[in-house]
Protein backbone atom coordinates (compact mmCIF):
# COMPACT_ATOMS: atom_id res chain seq x y z
CA UNK A 1 0.00 0.00 0.00
CA UNK A 2 2.90 2.36 0.77
CA UNK A 3 4.26 1.56 -2.65
CA UNK A 4 0.99 2.49 -4.37
CA UNK A 5 1.03 5.71 -2.35
CA UNK A 6 4.61 6.35 -3.45
CA UNK A 7 3.64 5.87 -7.12
CA UNK A 8 0.65 8.18 -6.66
CA UNK A 9 2.72 10.86 -4.90
CA UNK A 10 5.36 10.70 -7.65
CA UNK A 11 2.73 11.28 -10.30
CA UNK A 12 0.91 14.03 -8.40
CA UNK A 13 3.99 16.03 -7.42
CA UNK A 14 5.57 15.96 -10.89
CA UNK A 15 2.17 16.69 -12.41
CA UNK A 16 1.82 19.74 -10.16
CA UNK A 17 5.40 20.89 -10.84
CA UNK A 18 5.08 20.64 -14.60
CA UNK A 19 1.67 22.31 -14.53
CA UNK A 20 3.54 25.49 -13.52
CA UNK A 21 4.38 25.84 -17.20
CA UNK A 22 0.71 26.07 -18.10
CA UNK A 23 0.31 29.51 -19.63
CA UNK A 24 4.08 30.13 -19.40
CA UNK A 25 5.45 27.57 -21.86
CA UNK A 26 8.28 28.57 -24.18
CA UNK A 27 5.93 28.17 -27.15
CA UNK A 28 2.23 27.45 -27.34
CA UNK A 29 2.77 23.92 -28.63
CA UNK A 30 5.02 23.01 -25.68
CA UNK A 31 2.66 24.65 -23.24
CA UNK A 32 -0.08 22.28 -24.38
CA UNK A 33 2.24 19.27 -24.40
CA UNK A 34 3.37 19.82 -20.82
CA UNK A 35 -0.16 20.44 -19.60
CA UNK A 36 -1.16 17.22 -21.36
CA UNK A 37 1.54 15.29 -19.53
CA UNK A 38 0.45 16.78 -16.22
CA UNK A 39 -3.10 15.64 -16.86
CA UNK A 40 -1.80 12.13 -17.63
CA UNK A 41 0.17 12.12 -14.38
CA UNK A 42 -2.66 13.49 -12.26
CA UNK A 43 -4.95 10.88 -13.85
CA UNK A 44 -2.53 8.15 -12.79
CA UNK A 45 -2.35 9.64 -9.30
CA UNK A 46 -6.14 9.62 -9.00
CA UNK A 47 -6.44 5.94 -9.92
CA UNK A 48 -3.78 5.06 -7.37
CA UNK A 49 -5.18 7.28 -4.59
CA UNK A 50 -8.65 5.81 -5.11
CA UNK A 51 -7.18 2.37 -4.71
CA UNK A 52 -5.16 3.31 -1.62
CA UNK A 53 -8.26 4.94 -0.09
CA UNK A 54 -10.24 1.72 -0.56
CA UNK A 55 -7.45 -0.37 0.95
CA UNK A 56 -7.19 1.93 3.95
CA UNK A 57 -10.95 1.81 4.51
CA UNK A 58 -10.63 4.55 7.14
CA UNK A 59 -12.64 7.26 5.43
CA UNK A 60 -9.68 8.36 3.26
CA UNK A 61 -10.54 9.60 -0.20
CA UNK A 62 -8.42 10.57 -3.17
CA UNK A 63 -8.92 14.21 -2.12
CA UNK A 64 -7.96 13.69 1.51
CA UNK A 65 -4.79 11.92 0.36
CA UNK A 66 -3.85 14.67 -2.07
CA UNK A 67 -4.92 17.76 -0.13
CA UNK A 68 -4.85 16.93 3.57
CA UNK A 69 -1.50 15.27 4.10
CA UNK A 70 1.58 17.24 5.18
CA UNK A 71 5.00 17.05 3.47
CA UNK A 72 6.40 14.27 5.68
CA UNK A 73 3.49 11.99 4.69
CA UNK A 74 4.34 12.20 0.99
CA UNK A 75 6.56 9.40 -0.30
CA UNK A 76 7.61 10.82 -3.68
CA UNK A 77 11.20 10.98 -4.92
CA UNK A 78 12.88 14.28 -4.01
CA UNK A 79 13.81 14.76 -7.69
CA UNK A 80 10.19 15.43 -8.59
CA UNK A 81 9.53 18.27 -6.15
CA UNK A 82 12.54 20.41 -7.16
CA UNK A 83 11.79 23.71 -8.90
CA UNK A 84 12.56 24.12 -12.60
CA UNK A 85 15.99 25.57 -11.87
CA UNK A 86 19.54 24.40 -11.29
CA UNK A 87 21.04 24.84 -7.84
CA UNK A 88 22.66 28.19 -8.46
CA UNK A 89 19.62 29.89 -9.93
CA UNK A 90 17.08 31.54 -7.66
CA UNK A 91 13.74 29.83 -7.89
CA UNK A 92 11.77 32.83 -9.11
CA UNK A 93 9.20 32.14 -11.77
CA UNK A 94 11.15 34.15 -14.33
CA UNK A 95 14.16 31.87 -13.86
CA UNK A 96 12.43 28.64 -14.80
CA UNK A 97 14.76 26.64 -16.99
CA UNK A 98 13.16 24.37 -19.56
CA UNK A 99 16.31 22.26 -19.72
CA UNK A 100 15.72 21.24 -16.07
CA UNK A 101 12.11 20.36 -16.85
CA UNK A 102 13.19 18.24 -19.80
CA UNK A 103 16.12 16.54 -18.06
CA UNK A 104 13.94 15.63 -15.06
CA UNK A 105 11.13 14.33 -17.28
CA UNK A 106 13.70 12.31 -19.19
CA UNK A 107 15.28 10.67 -16.12
CA UNK A 108 11.93 9.96 -14.50
CA UNK A 109 10.07 8.76 -17.59
CA UNK A 110 12.98 6.44 -18.45
CA UNK A 111 12.59 4.97 -14.98
CA UNK A 112 8.78 4.77 -15.12
CA UNK A 113 8.77 3.01 -18.49
CA UNK A 114 10.70 0.23 -16.77
CA UNK A 115 8.60 0.29 -13.60
CA UNK A 116 5.25 0.16 -15.41
CA UNK A 117 6.56 -2.54 -17.78
CA UNK A 118 7.30 -4.68 -14.77
CA UNK A 119 4.13 -3.84 -12.84
CA UNK A 120 1.79 -4.58 -15.74
CA UNK A 121 2.46 -8.25 -14.95
CA UNK A 122 1.88 -7.78 -11.23
CA UNK A 123 -0.35 -10.45 -9.59
CA UNK A 124 -2.61 -7.72 -8.18
CA UNK A 125 -4.95 -7.07 -11.12
CA UNK A 126 -5.77 -3.49 -10.17
CA UNK A 127 -2.13 -2.46 -10.08
CA UNK A 128 -1.48 -4.34 -13.33
CA UNK A 129 -4.34 -2.48 -15.04
CA UNK A 130 -3.11 0.93 -13.84
CA UNK A 131 0.38 0.01 -15.01
CA UNK A 132 -0.81 -0.99 -18.48
CA UNK A 133 -2.69 2.30 -18.90
CA UNK A 134 0.15 4.40 -17.53
CA UNK A 135 2.78 2.66 -19.64
CA UNK A 136 1.25 4.04 -22.85
CA UNK A 137 1.27 7.54 -21.40
CA UNK A 138 4.79 7.44 -20.02
CA UNK A 139 6.21 6.05 -23.25
CA UNK A 140 5.01 9.20 -24.92
CA UNK A 141 6.40 11.39 -22.13
CA UNK A 142 9.72 9.66 -22.67
CA UNK A 143 9.69 10.32 -26.40
CA UNK A 144 8.90 13.96 -25.78
CA UNK A 145 11.65 14.40 -23.20
CA UNK A 146 14.30 12.42 -25.12
CA UNK A 147 13.54 14.32 -28.30
CA UNK A 148 13.95 17.66 -26.54
CA UNK A 149 17.07 16.64 -24.66
CA UNK A 150 18.69 15.73 -27.98
CA UNK A 151 17.59 18.99 -29.56
CA UNK A 152 18.87 21.06 -26.62
CA UNK A 153 22.11 19.12 -26.16
CA UNK A 154 22.92 19.03 -29.86
CA UNK A 155 21.62 22.56 -30.46
CA UNK A 156 23.33 25.88 -29.93
CA UNK A 157 26.26 26.34 -27.50
CA UNK A 158 23.87 28.06 -25.07
CA UNK A 159 21.26 25.28 -25.19
CA UNK A 160 24.01 22.66 -24.88
CA UNK A 161 25.42 24.32 -21.75
CA UNK A 162 22.01 24.64 -20.15
CA UNK A 163 21.15 21.01 -20.92
CA UNK A 164 24.50 19.86 -19.53
CA UNK A 165 24.01 21.92 -16.37
CA UNK A 166 20.52 20.44 -15.89
CA UNK A 167 21.74 16.86 -16.38
CA UNK A 168 24.69 17.42 -14.03
CA UNK A 169 22.48 18.99 -11.39
CA UNK A 170 19.74 16.36 -11.45
CA UNK A 171 21.75 13.18 -11.89
CA UNK A 172 22.62 12.73 -8.17
CA UNK A 173 18.91 12.75 -7.33
CA UNK A 174 18.35 9.68 -9.52
CA UNK A 175 20.21 7.59 -6.93
CA UNK A 176 16.97 7.54 -4.99
CA UNK A 177 15.39 5.39 -7.72
CA UNK A 178 17.53 2.48 -6.59
CA UNK A 179 17.54 2.87 -2.82
CA UNK A 180 16.12 -0.09 -0.98
CA UNK A 181 13.10 0.38 1.21
CA UNK A 182 10.64 -2.29 2.34
CA UNK A 183 7.56 -1.35 0.30
CA UNK A 184 9.53 -1.05 -2.96
CA UNK A 185 11.40 -4.28 -2.26
CA UNK A 186 8.07 -6.06 -2.15
CA UNK A 187 6.71 -4.57 -5.38
CA UNK A 188 9.97 -4.60 -7.36
CA UNK A 189 12.02 -7.43 -5.91
CA UNK A 190 14.97 -7.05 -8.28
CA UNK A 191 16.00 -3.61 -9.45
CA UNK A 192 19.45 -4.69 -10.64
CA UNK A 193 18.31 -5.41 -14.23
CA UNK A 194 16.17 -2.29 -14.20
CA UNK A 195 19.11 -0.19 -13.19
CA UNK A 196 21.21 -1.59 -16.04
CA UNK A 197 18.38 -0.99 -18.51
CA UNK A 198 17.91 2.55 -17.22
CA UNK A 199 21.56 3.44 -17.67
CA UNK A 200 21.46 2.05 -21.21
CA UNK A 201 18.45 4.23 -22.05
CA UNK A 202 20.11 7.27 -20.51
CA UNK A 203 23.50 6.67 -22.14
CA UNK A 204 22.04 6.31 -25.61
CA UNK A 205 20.15 9.57 -25.46
CA UNK A 206 22.91 11.55 -23.73
CA UNK A 207 25.44 10.49 -26.33
CA UNK A 208 23.08 11.37 -29.18
CA UNK A 209 22.55 14.71 -27.45
CA UNK A 210 26.35 15.16 -27.26
CA UNK A 211 26.08 15.54 -23.51
CA UNK A 212 28.65 14.30 -21.03
CA UNK A 213 27.30 11.64 -18.71
CA UNK A 214 27.83 12.67 -15.11
CA UNK A 215 28.17 10.19 -12.29
CA UNK A 216 25.25 9.61 -9.97
CA UNK A 217 26.98 10.12 -6.65
CA UNK A 218 26.96 12.14 -3.46
CA UNK A 219 24.15 12.58 -0.97
CA UNK A 220 21.24 10.21 -1.52
CA UNK A 221 17.96 12.04 -0.97
CA UNK A 222 15.22 10.40 1.07
CA UNK A 223 11.90 11.56 -0.28
CA UNK A 224 10.57 8.00 -0.21
CA UNK A 225 10.90 8.13 3.58
CA UNK A 226 9.02 11.42 3.77
CA UNK A 227 12.19 13.49 4.22
CA UNK A 228 11.86 16.19 1.60
CA UNK A 229 13.65 19.30 0.38
CA UNK A 230 12.52 22.76 1.44
CA UNK A 231 10.73 23.11 -1.89
CA UNK A 232 8.13 20.49 -1.00
CA UNK A 233 6.12 22.57 1.46
CA UNK A 234 5.87 25.50 -0.98
CA UNK A 235 4.64 23.21 -3.70
CA UNK A 236 2.06 21.63 -1.39
CA UNK A 237 0.97 25.02 -0.04
CA UNK A 238 0.12 26.18 -3.53
CA UNK A 239 -1.62 22.92 -4.39
CA UNK A 240 -3.51 22.40 -1.12
CA UNK A 241 -4.44 25.90 0.06
CA UNK A 242 -7.74 26.12 -1.78
CA UNK A 243 -8.97 22.73 -0.58
CA UNK A 244 -7.91 23.53 2.98
CA UNK A 245 -9.54 26.93 3.09
CA UNK A 246 -12.80 25.57 1.76
CA UNK A 247 -13.00 21.96 2.95
CA UNK A 248 -15.55 19.95 1.03
CA UNK A 249 -16.12 22.71 -1.53
CA UNK A 250 -17.49 21.56 -4.87
CA UNK A 251 -18.19 23.31 -8.14
Amino acid at each position, binding site marked *: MDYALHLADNALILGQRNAEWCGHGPVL*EEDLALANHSLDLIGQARLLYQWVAELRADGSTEDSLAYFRDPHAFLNFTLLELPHTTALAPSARADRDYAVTIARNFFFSSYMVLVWEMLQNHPEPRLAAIAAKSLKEVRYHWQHAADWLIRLGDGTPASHDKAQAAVDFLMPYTQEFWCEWPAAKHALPDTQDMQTAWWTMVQEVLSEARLRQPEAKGHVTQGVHGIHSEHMSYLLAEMQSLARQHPGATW
Partner: protein
Amino acid sequence: MSQNEHANEWPLWEVFVRSKQGIEHKHCGSLHAADAQQAIRMARDVYTRRQEGVSIWVIPSASITASDPADKESMFDPAKDKVYRHPTFFVIPDEVGHM
Protein backbone atom coordinates in the same frame (compact mmCIF):
# COMPACT_ATOMS: atom_id res chain seq x y z
CA MET B 1 5.11 42.00 -41.30
CA SER B 2 8.35 41.70 -43.18
CA GLN B 3 10.13 38.42 -43.83
CA ASN B 4 12.87 39.32 -41.33
CA GLU B 5 10.53 39.48 -38.39
CA HIS B 6 9.85 35.77 -38.88
CA ALA B 7 13.49 34.82 -39.40
CA ASN B 8 13.91 33.38 -35.89
CA GLU B 9 10.58 31.59 -35.79
CA TRP B 10 10.06 27.93 -36.48
CA PRO B 11 8.42 27.26 -39.85
CA LEU B 12 4.67 26.82 -40.07
CA TRP B 13 3.11 23.42 -40.75
CA GLU B 14 -0.39 22.49 -41.86
CA VAL B 15 -1.90 19.60 -39.91
CA PHE B 16 -4.25 16.96 -41.32
CA VAL B 17 -5.93 14.44 -39.03
CA ARG B 18 -7.85 11.30 -39.92
CA SER B 19 -10.59 10.56 -37.43
CA LYS B 20 -11.65 7.07 -36.37
CA GLN B 21 -14.65 7.05 -38.69
CA GLY B 22 -13.08 9.13 -41.43
CA ILE B 23 -11.49 7.79 -44.56
CA GLU B 24 -9.56 10.87 -45.56
CA HIS B 25 -7.27 13.15 -43.57
CA LYS B 26 -8.93 16.49 -42.94
CA HIS B 27 -7.21 19.80 -42.46
CA CYS B 28 -7.57 20.87 -38.85
CA GLY B 29 -5.14 23.73 -38.37
CA SER B 30 -1.52 24.77 -38.33
CA LEU B 31 1.36 25.05 -35.87
CA HIS B 32 5.00 26.06 -35.60
CA ALA B 33 7.70 23.40 -35.31
CA ALA B 34 11.40 23.06 -36.03
CA ASP B 35 11.01 20.02 -38.30
CA ALA B 36 8.50 17.46 -39.54
CA GLN B 37 8.97 14.94 -36.72
CA GLN B 38 8.50 17.62 -34.10
CA ALA B 39 5.47 18.92 -35.99
CA ILE B 40 3.86 15.46 -35.78
CA ARG B 41 4.48 15.32 -32.04
CA MET B 42 3.16 18.77 -31.46
CA ALA B 43 0.13 18.08 -33.64
CA ARG B 44 -0.59 15.12 -31.38
CA ASP B 45 -0.68 17.41 -28.35
CA VAL B 46 -2.43 20.33 -29.99
CA TYR B 47 -5.01 18.63 -32.20
CA THR B 48 -5.70 15.09 -30.93
CA ARG B 49 -6.18 15.64 -27.20
CA ARG B 50 -9.88 14.83 -27.39
CA GLN B 51 -9.55 11.57 -29.27
CA GLU B 52 -10.01 13.31 -32.61
CA GLY B 53 -7.68 11.15 -34.59
CA VAL B 54 -5.89 7.93 -35.44
CA SER B 55 -3.44 9.31 -37.99
CA ILE B 56 -1.66 12.64 -38.55
CA TRP B 57 -0.10 14.23 -41.64
CA VAL B 58 1.90 17.45 -41.60
CA ILE B 59 3.18 19.44 -44.54
CA PRO B 60 5.14 22.69 -44.65
CA SER B 61 2.67 25.52 -45.14
CA ALA B 62 5.10 27.03 -47.66
CA SER B 63 4.47 24.03 -49.93
CA ILE B 64 0.86 25.00 -50.46
CA THR B 65 0.03 27.05 -53.51
CA ALA B 66 -3.34 28.70 -53.11
CA SER B 67 -5.74 30.15 -55.64
CA ASP B 68 -5.97 33.91 -55.65
CA PRO B 69 -9.13 35.20 -53.91
CA ALA B 70 -9.23 37.99 -56.52
CA ASP B 71 -9.82 35.35 -59.20
CA LYS B 72 -12.85 33.97 -57.36
CA GLU B 73 -15.41 35.17 -59.88
CA SER B 74 -13.68 33.90 -62.97
CA MET B 75 -12.62 30.68 -61.28
CA PHE B 76 -15.85 29.56 -59.66
CA ASP B 77 -18.87 31.53 -60.79
CA PRO B 78 -19.09 29.97 -64.28
CA ALA B 79 -20.02 26.65 -62.66
CA LYS B 80 -23.11 28.14 -61.04
CA ASP B 81 -25.56 27.73 -63.94
CA LYS B 82 -24.47 24.25 -64.97
CA VAL B 83 -26.74 22.17 -62.79
CA TYR B 84 -26.63 19.34 -65.33
CA ARG B 85 -23.17 18.53 -64.00
CA HIS B 86 -24.78 17.16 -60.83
CA PRO B 87 -25.74 13.51 -61.21
CA THR B 88 -29.19 14.21 -59.77
CA PHE B 89 -30.99 13.52 -63.06
CA PHE B 90 -30.33 9.79 -62.93
CA VAL B 91 -32.75 7.34 -61.39
CA ILE B 92 -30.80 4.87 -59.28
CA PRO B 93 -32.35 1.38 -59.04
CA ASP B 94 -33.07 0.27 -55.47
CA GLU B 95 -30.77 -2.71 -55.81
CA VAL B 96 -27.75 -0.40 -56.08
CA GLY B 97 -28.32 0.89 -52.57
CA HIS B 98 -26.36 3.82 -51.14
CA MET B 99 -23.92 5.49 -53.51
